[in-house]
C-alpha cells in the first residue's frame, strides 16, 4: 500500500493548471489596468482578455517578461498561527502576436496570439493539506502553475470583431497496482496518463457608433471552466492477506471558474479608459479533495471519511483601467497605466467541520475546516515605453484583503470508529487579513 501511495504522489504532482491569469490578469498592459482588456486589448494579451481583439494586431510581436508575487496572509484566532507562510510566486511570461497577412478582403483582419506563463522554479504547485491546516485556498498555490492560451481574432468589418481560442490544462488519470512479486518482495506496476483538457474562450467587440475605428467599444468574452483533476486508484488488494480497500487519491489541483466579462472602453491613440465587470461561476467549485475510500454500491452508508465541502458562491468583479499615451521624439511613446478592481471572495463566511480519525484513539472526530479567503481591493499601475522596434513595460498590483471574520465549526469529541460522525463542536472565529504584491517587467520586439 505504501509503495503505491508513493507513486501516487508523483502522479498528483504531474498536473498543470492555469490560474495566475485569473488572479492577476495576463500581460503588462492588462495587469497594469487591473485586468481590463475585454474591450481595450490590442496585442497578444487578447488571447486571454478577448480573442476578438487579436485582430487589432498590426506587427509581429515577441515578448519575454518576468513576474513576481509575494503573499503576506494572516489568519488569527484560537488555534491559528497568525501569518501563514507562502513562497513567492515567480514566473516568466512569453507572448507571441502574429497578424496574418492575408490579401484581398482579409487584409489586416486576422491575427493569432499565443500566451505562456511558466513559474520559474516549478511548473505546478500541488499542495493540498488536510483541511485543519490553515490555508488560503484561492490565492497562493493557484498562482504557481503553467498557463497556455492561444486564440484567433477576425475583424468582420463595420466595427465588429469576433474571436476564439482556448486555455489548456493537463489532468491525470492513472492506476497503481501493488502486489507481492515472484521473489516475495513488494513490487508495483504504475500506469498513468497525463491528459489535456481544454476550455474555450470566445469573444466579440463592437465599435460604437457602428463603424470601424470609432473610439467607443463594447466587448464581451466568455471563458470556459478549467478544471485540473487528478485521479489515481491504488490497488493493494493483492499485497497481503490484509483486506485493504482500493485507495482513491483524487482531487482538484487547479480550478478556474467559468467566466463572462463585459467591458466598455473609450480607446484612442492618446487615451484609453476601460470599465467592466467579470462574472465568475465559483459555485461550481467542488472543493479540493475527494474521499480516499469510497463506499461500495452495496454499502452506501459505510464508514468512509468524507472530504470537506466548500459552498463557494458566484462573484462579480468590477474593474476600471486607464492608459495615457504620450508621444515622444523619434517615434518613441510613453504609456502610463493604472487601474482598480474589487474581487469579492467566493468562499463562505462559515465553514463546517471536516472528518478525521484521531491517530491515538482511532476514533472519528470533527476538525475545523481552515480554508480561508477574503475579498480583495486591487490597485494596479504600470508604464511602458516604445522605442521601435523594442517595447519595455513594467507593472504592479497591490491586493489588499478586506479584513474578514470566518466562523469555523470547531473540533468535537471523538466517536467510536465506524459510528455516525459526531455533531459539530462549538464554533471559533478566524480573523483574516493580508496583502498580495505583484510586479513584473517585460521586453518585447516587433519584427
Amino acid at each position, binding site marked *: 500500500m505504501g509503495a503505491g501511495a508513493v507513486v501516487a504522489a508523483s502522479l498528483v504532482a504531474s498536473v498543470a493548471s492555469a490560474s495566475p491569469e485569473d488572479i492577476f490578469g495576463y500581460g503588462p498592459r492588462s495587469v497594469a489596468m487591473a485586468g481590463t482588456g475585454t474591450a481595450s486589448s490590442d496585442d497578444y494579451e487578447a488571447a486571454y482578455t478577448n480573442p476578438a481583439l487579436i485582430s487589432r494586431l498590426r506587427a509581429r510581436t515577441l515578448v519575454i517578461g518576468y513576474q513576481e508575487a509575494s503573499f503576506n496572509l494572516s489568519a488569527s484566532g484560537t488555534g491559528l498561527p497568525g501569518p501563514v507562510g507562502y513562497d513567492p510566486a515567480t514566473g516568466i511570461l512569453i507572448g507571441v502576436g502574429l497578424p496574418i497577412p492575408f490579401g484581398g478582403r482579409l487584409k489586416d483582419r486576422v491575427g493569432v496570439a499565443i500566451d505562456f506563463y511558466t513559474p520559474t522554479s516549478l511548473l505546478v504547485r*500541488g499542495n493540498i493539506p488536510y483541511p485543519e491546516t490553515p490555508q488560503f485556498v484561492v490565492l497562493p498555490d493557484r498562482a504557481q502553475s503553467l498557463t497556455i492560451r492561444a486564440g484567433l481574432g477576425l475583424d468582420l468589418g463595420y466595427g465588429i470583431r469576433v474571436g476564439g481560442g482556448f486555455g489548456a490544462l493537463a489532468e491525470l488519470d492513472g492506476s497503481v497496482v501493488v502486489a*507481492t512479486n515472484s521473489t516475495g518482495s513488494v513490487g508495483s506496476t504504475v500506469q*498513468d496518463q497525463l491528459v489535456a483538457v481544454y476550455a474555450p474562450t470566445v469573444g466579440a467587440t463592437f465599435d460604437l457608433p457602428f463603424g470601424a475605428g470609432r473610439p467607443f467599444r463594447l466587448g464581451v468574452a466568455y471563458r470556459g471552466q478549467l478544471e485540473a483533476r487528478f485521479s489515481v486508484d491504488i490497488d493493494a488488494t493483492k*499485497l497481503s492477506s490484509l483486506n485493504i480497500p482500493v*485507495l482513491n487519491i483524487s482531487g482538484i489541483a487547479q480550478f478556474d471558474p467559468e467566466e463572462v466579462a463585459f467591458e466598455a472602453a473609450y480607446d484612442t491613440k492618446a487615451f484609453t479608459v476601460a470599465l467592466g465587470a467579470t462574472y465568475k461561476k465559483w459555485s461550481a467549485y467542488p472543493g479540493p479533495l475527494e474521499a480516499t475510500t469510497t463506499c461500495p454500491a452495496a454499502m452506501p452508508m459505510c464508514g468512509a471519511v468524507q472530504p470537506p465541502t466548500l459552498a463557494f458562491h458566484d462573484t462579480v468583479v468590477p474593474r476600471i483601467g486607464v492608459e495615457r499615451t504620450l508621444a515622444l521624439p523619434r517615434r518613441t511613446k510613453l504609456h502610463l497605466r493604472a487601474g482598480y478592481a474589487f474581487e469579492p471572495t467566493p468562499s463562505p463566511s462559515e465553514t463546517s467541520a471536516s472528518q478525521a480519525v484521531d491517530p491515538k484513539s482511532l476514533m472519528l472526530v470533527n476538525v475545523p475546516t481552515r480554508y480561508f479567503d477574503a475579498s480583495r481591493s486591487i490597485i494596479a499601475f504600470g508604464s511602458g515605453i516604445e522605442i521601435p*522596434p523594442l517595447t519595455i513595460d513594467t507593472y504592479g498590483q497591490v491586493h489588499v484583503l478586506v479584513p474578514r471574520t470566518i466562523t469555523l465549526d470547531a473540533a468535537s469529541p471523538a466517536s467510536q470508529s465506524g459510528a455516525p460522525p459526531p455533531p459539530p463542536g462549538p464554533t471559533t472565529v478566524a480573523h483574516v487579513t493580508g496583502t498580495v504584491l505583484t510586479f513584473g517587467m517585460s521586453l518585447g520586439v516587433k519584427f
Partner: protein
Amino acid sequence: MRPLGALALVAFVAIASEARANPVDAFGLGSRGTAMGGAQAADVSDFSANYYNPAGLARAPKLELSLGYMGADQSLYVNGVNSGIDPVKGLVGGVVAPGRVFGIPFAFGLAIFLPDDFLSRVNALPQDQPRWELYANRNQRLYIAANVAISPLPWLQVGGGIAFMAATSGTLGITGSLPVLQAANAELRHEVDADLTAIRYPQVGARVELSRNVALAFVYRGQFSEKLDLHAILSGGITLTPTTPLLTTAYYNLETISVSAFLPQQAVLGASWQITPNLRTNLDLTYVNWSAYVSPVASINVKLNIPPPSFGWPPGIAPPTTPAPTTILPLNMNDTLVPHLGIEWRALERPKWEGFVRGGYEYDKSPIPAQTGSTNYIDRDRHAFSFGLGLRLMQVLRELPGDIRLDGHVQLSALFDGTTVKSSPADYVGDYVAGGHIWNVGGNVTVGF
C-alpha cells in the same frame, strides 16, 4: 545588435519547450523531414526547424502556419506474440514568423506534436519484465519546441532555445484506520504536497552556406533526465472491524528516487547539396550519447513498522513484509552514430504549382547491449525507409498571396528478428526472439503568407 542579442538570450533562457524529443527523435517532425529520412539539419526552413535545426528558422522567407497529422503503428513481437505497443499518433503543427530587427533577419518559431489520447504516459515496470524500452512509453509524449534565430551574415544562421521537462518531488500522507475484515469501513484520508519542477536544457544550431549549392550545419540538443523524487508516509491503526479494539499500528515510510524519462544529448552534423536546380540530397550524422542513459528502475528506501498484536495475528491475516531492497542493474547502453540520408526531386514545375518526390533512409543501431542477464530491455537495430510527395500551389487566392504546400510521407521501420539468449538456463523469462516493424504515415499543410 546588442539589444537583439539580449532579447535572444532572454528568449533562450525563457522559451518553454516541454517534453521535446522522443516521438520526434523516433519518427521525425513534419512530412518533408520524415520523408527525407530526418536529414534536414542543413536544409530546413519550415516549422520543423524547431527540431531539426533552429538556425533554419532565419531562412524562412515568409510567415508560415503548418498543421498536419501523423500516426505510427508499432507492430513489435516477442516470440511471435504482438507486444501490443500502442500506436503513436497525433496532430503536428507549427509557426515560423520571420522578420527583421535592427535590419537583421530574425525569426521566431514554434512546433508541436500533440498526441491524440494523452500528453504523456508513464508505465513503470520491474526491471526483469520484458519491455520495448525505446518504443513503448518514451514515444507517448507531448512535444513543444520554441526557438529564435538570426542571420547576422548572409551565409550564416544561428538559433536556439531552451527546452524544459518536468521533475517531480513531493510528499504524500495517508492517515486513518483500517479494519482489515471490513475494508469498506476504512477511515482513511490523504494530503499531498508535491511540486512539478522544471528541468531546462539547451538546443542550439548553426548553418553555414559554403556556396549557393552546398551548406553545412551543426546542431546540439542537450540531455535531460526526468527525475521522480518522492516521500510517502502512511500511518494509522489496523483493526479487525470498526468496532473492535486496535490490533496494531502501521507505519510505512518510503522514499523513492528514479529517472522516469531520459533523453541523451545529441550532436548533429549535417550537409545539404543542391546537385541540380531540381535535385537535392542531404546527409546528417547524429551522435547520441546513450551511454549516459540512466536505468528507469527506482531506488527505494523503506522503513516499515507493523508490530504484531500482543496476541499475535488472527488466523488468515498476514501483514506485508518489508520489501527487499531493489538492486538496480546498470543498463550500460552504448553511444551511437545515426546516419540519415535524404533526397528531394522537384519532378514537376509549372507556373502555378510544383511537385516533389522525396526519399530517405535512417539506420539506428540499437544502443542496448545484449540482455543476457535478468533485465529485459528489448531493442533491435532499426532500418527506416521513407518516401514522400509534395505539392506546392502558388497564388491560389487573392486573399492568399503566398503559397500552400501539401506534404505527405510513408515510412517503414524494420526491426529484424534477433534472438536474446540468457546466460542462465534458470532465467524465468528465458530466451526469446524479438523483432517487428513500424509503419509511419502522415501529412501536413503549410500556408505561407
